């Protein structure tokens, strides 16, 4: 018993181990891509591109990780993000102030978090159903808010056309190359549901914010034509990274953060340990909602347009990222840094698939599914082996 007082390194916890695995695999994958594909992967821009495109997903995944650590689930995050994008776009286009629009984003996010959290923790309703309803509601509101295609005049269509060529059009059933810009054709496409209209933002203050990028020259590269292209990072990425850091600290060092782990580990125990279980669970959903709001705004900063099909499927991507990063849906295990790398892994795969010339649209989702399958099985095996080792160690004592 004496020697127990001497310093001893504790074995990695499940959260740490799963996170380490995720980071290692990310590194291996990326270095592999660098060696095989060279080109884009050797440039820092590649990483910044991934970050720029996925800042909203990172933020949303952080929120979801918190909820999952607390043993819950929130599938409304993508829909809330989309609602925030649409609401803020409309607000700005109708002469709203940029700062007020930020408040609006946070307000919508918080509102969803508060209501869902209340229903789940104080009325004891299954989180899946509540957030499913939240998802339906947010998606429905988004389409209600979205512009009626019949009223659209030539000008926004011009804007829209611009946006399509900037790569922001999500709907894959239209090929931008063969895209016919005649008004009749557009209206037809909209009626068939093949395309939805953007609410492109005209507010000048917001435009400056949108165009604003942090340029890091020394990380850039020189294009073949001699132009120096600096690595550029949008403000959204800074917000996302900030979110990751803040939530990492919250989970690790804040009373509330530890409460989430306790809650997910064993709810009855958490109650007996004097943790206010209901409030802790409530707050996990509130934080998640708040982050969805922020994510919506970052999304808008990236695309500069509101669209009813924004962020479709984001909730599942966020869940996938959290899982790859080592968060277990059963609760109590997880880490937000892992989640960050989860997002990176998901999107690096997509980049690799595109770079390898597998352009058929089904390749991306099949590889994503395969990767997900690999990680899920790997984790299941790792956890199984560890619990077995632990059990034998205890019984040997």
């Amino acid at each position: 018993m004496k020697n127990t007082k001497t310093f001893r390194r504790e074995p990695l916890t499940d959260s740490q181990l799963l996170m380490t695995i995720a980071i290692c695999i990310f590194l291996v994958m990326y270095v592999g891509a660098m060696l095989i594909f060279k080109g884009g992967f050797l440039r820092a821009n590649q990483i910044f591109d991934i970050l720029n495109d996925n800042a909203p997903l990172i933020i949303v995944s952080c929120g979801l990780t918190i909820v999952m650590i607390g043993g819950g689930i929130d599938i409304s995050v993508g829909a809330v993000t989309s609602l925030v994008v649409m609401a803020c776009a409309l607000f700005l286009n109708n002469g709203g102030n940029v700062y007020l629009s930020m408040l609006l984003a946070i307000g919508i996010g918080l509102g969803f978090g508060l209501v869902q959290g209340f229903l789940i923790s104080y009325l004891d309703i299954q989180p899946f159903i509540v957030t499913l309803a939240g998802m339906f509601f947010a998606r429905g509101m988004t389409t209600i808010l979205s512009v009626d295609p019949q009223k659209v005049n030539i000008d926004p269509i011009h804007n829209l056309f611009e946006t399509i060529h900037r790569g922001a059009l999500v709907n894959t059933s239209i090929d931008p190359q063969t895209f016919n810009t005649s008004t009749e054709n557009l209206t037809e496409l909209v009626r068939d549901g093949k395309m939805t209209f953007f609410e492109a933002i005209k507010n000048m203050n917001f435009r400056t914010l949108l165009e604003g990028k942090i340029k890091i020259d020394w990380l850039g590269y020189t294009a073949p034509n001699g132009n120096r292209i600096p690595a550029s990072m949008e403000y959204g990425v800074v917000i996302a990274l900030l979110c990751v850091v803040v939530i990492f600290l919250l989970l690790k060092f804040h009373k509330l953060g530890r409460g989430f782990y306790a809650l997910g580990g064993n709810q009855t125990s958490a109650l007996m340990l004097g943790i206010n279980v209901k409030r802790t669970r409530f707050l996990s959903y509130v934080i998640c909602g708040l982050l969805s709001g922020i994510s919506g705004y970052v999304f808008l900063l990236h695309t500069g347009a509101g669209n009813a099909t924004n962020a479709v499927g984001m909730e599942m991507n966020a869940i996938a990222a959290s899982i790859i990063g080592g968060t277990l849906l059963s609760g109590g295990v997880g880490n937000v840094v892992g989640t960050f790398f989860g997002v990176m892994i998901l999107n690096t795969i997509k980049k690799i698939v595109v770079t390898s010339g597998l352009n058929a649209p089904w390749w991306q989702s099949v590889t994503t599914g395969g990767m997900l399958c690999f990680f899920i099985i790997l984790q299941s095996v790792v956890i199984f082996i560890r619990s077995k080792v632990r059990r034998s160690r205890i019984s040997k004592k």
Partner: protein
Amino acid sequence: MADHALLEMRHINKLFPGVKALSDVDFTLRKGEIHALMGENGAGKSTLIKVLTGVYQNDGGEIRVEGKNISIRSPQDAQNNGISTVYQEITLCPNLTVAENMFIGREKDVFVHNRRREKRANELLGELGIPARGSQMLGNCSLAVQQMVAIARAVDMNCKVLILDEPTSSLDDKEVNVLFGLMRDLKARGVGIIFVTHFLEQVYEVCDRITVLRNGELVGEYLTEELPQVQLVAKMIGKDLDEISSFGEVEEKEFSDADIFYEAKKLSSSDALPFDFEIHKGEVNGFTGLLGSGRSESVRAIFGADKVNGGTVKINGKHVKITKPIDAMKNGIGYLAEDRKRDGIIADLSVRENIILALQVMKGFFKPISRSESEAFADEYIKVLNIKTASRETPIGSLSGGNQQKVILARWLLTHPDYLILDEPTRGIDVGTKLEIQKLVLKLAEDGVAVTFISSEIEEMLRTCSRLIVMRDRRIVGELKGSDLNQAQVMKTIAGGES
């Protein structure tokens, strides 16, 4: 008397829909005493504890701590008033460290200082002699250590009243002694301890006073030295003791080799080391040993409940392969698992469905027992075993522990086993039902059923078994029968012949 009362509960009432769980109960705890709270299952012990810890709210009466009236609405309220509880099931979080488990939920700091916390935890653990480190994950500790961590937490909270709810049921003797040392230490510091247990010897070992409850009412409060054990039991079950003493010695039975029903050679599983074992028709044998000695693991291996690694098994002289529970069941073996809640009852299903479950499994997936047939079975066994239930369609989860156990017994009796393994069938159930189960075991043996009976109460085993297999450190270290079957000899074998 009331002047050094630490905790007073007066005229406590608690109503549940249809039941009065507590009626007008008084309870007094003094400074620096260990006070046993005794009663059968359903007597209201746990309800009283839950009222005191804020899990339930009392429907009447008052609670005073050091003379001050308090109201307890949540576990936090209880903690704030200096009332801490250590439950039978570990109520800590396995995914947090030992130190975190000791300090979470009661620190005022918004930010957590892990280093400082672990240092304090290590000091306290050292002081109390608990073999754990603050930085260790709780899930990596043994159950006993986890329990002690829970006590350390309570100690550090400067609790005035410490409630220990069945703390010893998952500990072995050595660990129990450490725990008792800890309790006496706390007692010397002036902490009042409420000790809830089923083990009578332990009560007489550490307790100063005993309060007995029966059917939600107070029977009385006694000084331990003034209340002989026999009388205590009488007060708890409220019936004559003759019935208890009516158990004679188990008569000697001679078994020939031809009667061997089950025989295993070098049987081993993922949790049990290889062992040899045989049992005759109509024999009652027992496995004994400390917790973790491998007694449960061995019978689980016989039933195929864990992964069987090797060994040969003969039933009625014929080789058979038992690797899954269904194999064992098809060969006429039944197994009543140690942990009723986890491995026995299907809580939301009705008594009827619980009774027919094993038989249904044996009959197979495609031959369901018809409704009327299953109702007949259920009615029969409810009557035979005297199961107290509102109806056969009542969910088993709402029955009391003893009656749940009877339903599980009925489940196995219905399969008409040739060999029945009962692992701790009497744990956590009231004295009356215990006696009924012991009688049933003897009756089964008379009918030619081989029975393996495991119990942590050696007396109980001595009353029922004609042969005892003693295990230590996952190995069989002795086999006792005939005149060797007495408490002293059993203890000696368990302890390893040192004393």
